């Protein structure tokens, strides 16, 4: 009998995670929605963007964006062609309402596919983009390798790169945030 363990290379995407032998989690368990609500209230009051609590096997992580617009990386019309382009991943741009702010508007570029994320075209090559770069929609921001195919991913938006959210060589899933762009620059 081998107890199954949470794997190390877990991909992101869940906001609250708890694995393993917490089957009988009492009121204090990570799945306690009331606690999650209290945490959210706390976050709103103090305008926090993330809380990440861990203890032994338990973990509660909550993220809270400001005015965030999610853009699939190849989701905008006129985006440049990549070496291979996954089809059928064209959700509409989510426009964030005003008054929701924690400062400026930020656009999140998300992965259009499952694969491995690379910041550069090779181990010795320069990164496609780095924080502070000004980019245009057709600018390739990364490569995602899927099934031995290297897919160049265009930004799909113009602006200034604010953050790169994925480590070089890390696996990414569909819809996973890749980088943040400030479109007002």
């Amino acid at each position, binding site marked *: *009998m*081998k107890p*199954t*363990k*949470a*794997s190390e*290379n*877990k*991909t992101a*995407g*869940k906001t609250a*995670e*708890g*694995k393993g032998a917490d089957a009988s989690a009492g009121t204090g368990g990570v799945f306690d929605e009331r606690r999650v609500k209290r945490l959210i209230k706390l976050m709103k009051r103090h305008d926090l963007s993330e809380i990440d609590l861990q203890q032994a096997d338990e973990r509660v992580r909550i993220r809270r964006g400001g005015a965030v617009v999610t853009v699939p990386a190849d989701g905008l019309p006129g985006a440049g062609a990549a070496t291979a382009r*996954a089809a*059928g*991943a064209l*959700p509409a741009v989510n426009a964030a309402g005003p008054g929701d702010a924690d400062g400026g508007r930020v656009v999140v570029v998300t992965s259009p*596919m*499952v*694969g*491995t994320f690379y910041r550069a075209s090779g181990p010795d090559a320069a990164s496609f983009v780095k924080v502070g770069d000004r980019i245009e929609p057709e600018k390739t921001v990364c490569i995602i390798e*899927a*099934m031995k195919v290297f897919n160049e991913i265009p930004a799909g938006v113009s602006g200034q790169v604010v953050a790169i959210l994925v480590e070089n060589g890390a*696996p*990414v*899933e*569909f*819809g*996973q945030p890749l980088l943040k762009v400030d479109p007002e620059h």
Partner: protein
Amino acid sequence: MFKRILVANRGEIALRVIRACREMGIETVAVHSEADRDAPYLELADEVICVGPARAADSYLRIDRIISAAEVGNAQAIHPGYGFLSENAHFAEVCRSCDITFIGPTPEAMQRLGDKNSARALARAAGVPTVPGSDGLVTSEEDAVRIARSIGFPVLLKATAGGGGKGMRVAANDLALAGAWQQASAEAQAAFGNPGIYIERYVERPRHVEIQILGDQHGTMVHLWERDCSTQRRHQKLIEESPSPRLPTATREAMCAAAVRLAAAAGYHSAGTVEFIVDQQDNFYFIEVNARIQVEHPVSEMVTGIDLLKAQIRVAAGERLGLVQDDIRPRGHAIECRINAEDPAANFRPCPGRIERIIAPGGFGVRFDSHAAAGYVVPPNYDSLIGKLIVHQPTRSGAIETMARALRELRIEGVRTTVPLHLDLLASAPFHEARIDTTFVERWLAGASS
């Protein structure tokens, strides 16, 4: 044995595979669409990967994304469940080319059995009865009459290009046949641009009886006896049971032997199902092979005590089955009711939505396989199955009593379900007296509403 398996499916069968893997100490990678992001069973997987938006064609059916998820998730094998990519021979080939084990038959066996005509030819060669009919197309009225006389009336005329009942006619005698052939041919021409018609014997009020088979890669092929899936509505199975009531022992054994012969002839391994129809005189005819695990597999598990999912994974890993036919002794009677989020009172309209509360039934002989929990939102994008209630008792009447008790205990609040239909069906005279065939539910529903 595999260290890590990717589950290329969703809902109850994804949970079923994850459960088997957890018991075997195998890690799981669960893929999901955006619509299933909050499904509670994902918490039981070791890794969770979103592969696309809600639309199945963009997520669960995307071979490239599934394979890619297996690669980034380091899975050595993929379990396809049922539906989606489970009977896609091309997908099985891609898995092989990527050095990922497809948990199912080989692409070659799938191809041999996937095409109905080649499967029928294989069956005939293996001495498995098929519905008698014309070998090819019927070219004239005289030809039609000659063939119909040789196979015996009533006969069914079918368009070779057909589907959905178009170009289909039943004829009870020579006279009817002449007109029917003309009409069917004209209708087929109009509907499909192809007037080709073939003839087979029309089986009235057949029973749907299928044999569960299980084979390894070392030449062992066994059957786990039969399931009766006659309780259907519009070709959708509602209730499955094992053993098939009123099936003579000799017929049952002949069907099981035929299923094993056919599977062996096809070079099949893994779990699979050989479907037959059985006529009123207990003659049986091969229909098709379902080259995958099926929704109703638990009824066979209950009567044989064999975990089909674990066995399927073991043989896919190259292990020996470790079973011979004599080890597989059925005990008692098992029944499964499919609990769908549909409103039987509103023409079975699907009822997606949030499940506010769920109380699962328990007790002796009761198994409830469901991916639903309080707070779970049944998405509108996929089939409406939200759970399977399975019971096992020494006798069929005992199983019916336990099923009725368990259905009354099962409480699902927030969405309408087929539970009331099942209660009515169980209490109906045809089901209760085991006078079932694939047409009885619709006749009974028509009678109940008139």
